[in-house]
């Protein structure tokens, strides 16, 4: 979207544009800082909700930096509140020292997130494991899961909801 045009579009459209453009960036920042897939999702959501509340006073300039500041603040609050700072273990520290400057092509964070998500899903008991793997890991919609498994859509939605709660706790 052209920078000049942004000022003239309505609040709702602009807000959706912000989510579409920056949701991956905000989620990545949160995931990198807190190192937990579902906490990162919550923090990214909080970031966008907070952005909406302050959208009327935002001058629509430097939106990337603005969202990044909000996300960092949310993560800082989370770290301070829970004291769940991600301190690397000794093994991790030396492992990371080897590839000090990874090339931009290597999508390390994405693989880390996917690996963590898969591990979390696989720790659940049936039927939540299958539901979580399909919905969160393979990104299959609730309707498609219902069609695939022959379950009622409401049942699938309830199982997704419960699986999410279990994954957050794990």
């Amino acid at each position, binding site marked *: 979207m052209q920078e000049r045009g942004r000022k003239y579009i309505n609040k709702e459209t602009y807000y959706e544009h912000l989510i579409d453009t920056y949701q991956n960036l905000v989620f990545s920042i949160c995931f990198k800082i807190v190192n937990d897939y579902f906490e990162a999702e919550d923090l990214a959501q909080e970031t966008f909700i907070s952005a909406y509340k302050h959208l009327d006073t935002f001058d629509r300039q430097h939106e990337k930096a603005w969202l990044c500041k909000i996300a960092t603040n949310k993560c800082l609050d989370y770290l301070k509140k829970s004291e769940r700072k991600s301190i690397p273990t000794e093994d991790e*520290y030396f492992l990371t020292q080897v590839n000090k400057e990874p090339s931009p092509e290597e999508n390390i964070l994405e693989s880390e997130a996917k690996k963590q998500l898969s591990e979390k899903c696989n720790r659940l008991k049936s039927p939540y494991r299958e539901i979580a793997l399909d919905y969160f890991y393979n990104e299959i919609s609730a309707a498609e899961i219902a069609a695939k498994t022959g379950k009622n859509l409401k049942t699938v939605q309830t199982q997704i909801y419960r699986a999410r709660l279990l994954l957050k706790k794990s």
Partner: protein
Amino acid sequence: MNDKVHISKTDLYAFKNNSMDPEELMSFLEHISECTYCSDQFAVFMSDDLVSAPVDMKSNILKAVRREQLIKGKVKDVSKRMQLFIYSLKVGAATSLALLMLILMTLSNTGMTDDNFYEVAKNDPVQNVPITTIIRDGMDSICNDIIDFSSKMIK
């Protein structure tokens, strides 16, 4: 990291490789959360290695925003009703005060106090004037005063 110094490439790579100790990490994040230049640098750096956000994140955000708007709307509605209640109270109080002043003024114009008004009215048939007449006279005198005052203001 000094708060006044912007973050460097080394800081960014140290963050990416998890080689910052907790104090360094907190200081690094605190600086980014306050500095627009560094948060922009940080965002550009992070854009090289993105994680796809969960598929339903956008719909969940929009749902949460709508829920907040709904709550805000309800609070606004309650506050409007509260404002109306306070306004009614004010109008009621002002009316009562105006009536009280009217009666007191009428009594003072006729040279009577609360104590002797009823006594005089009982004993003296000439003074035995109905209260409605007294109020009407009082209102006439107030109206005349207001008209005089406004005429003076216009002049």
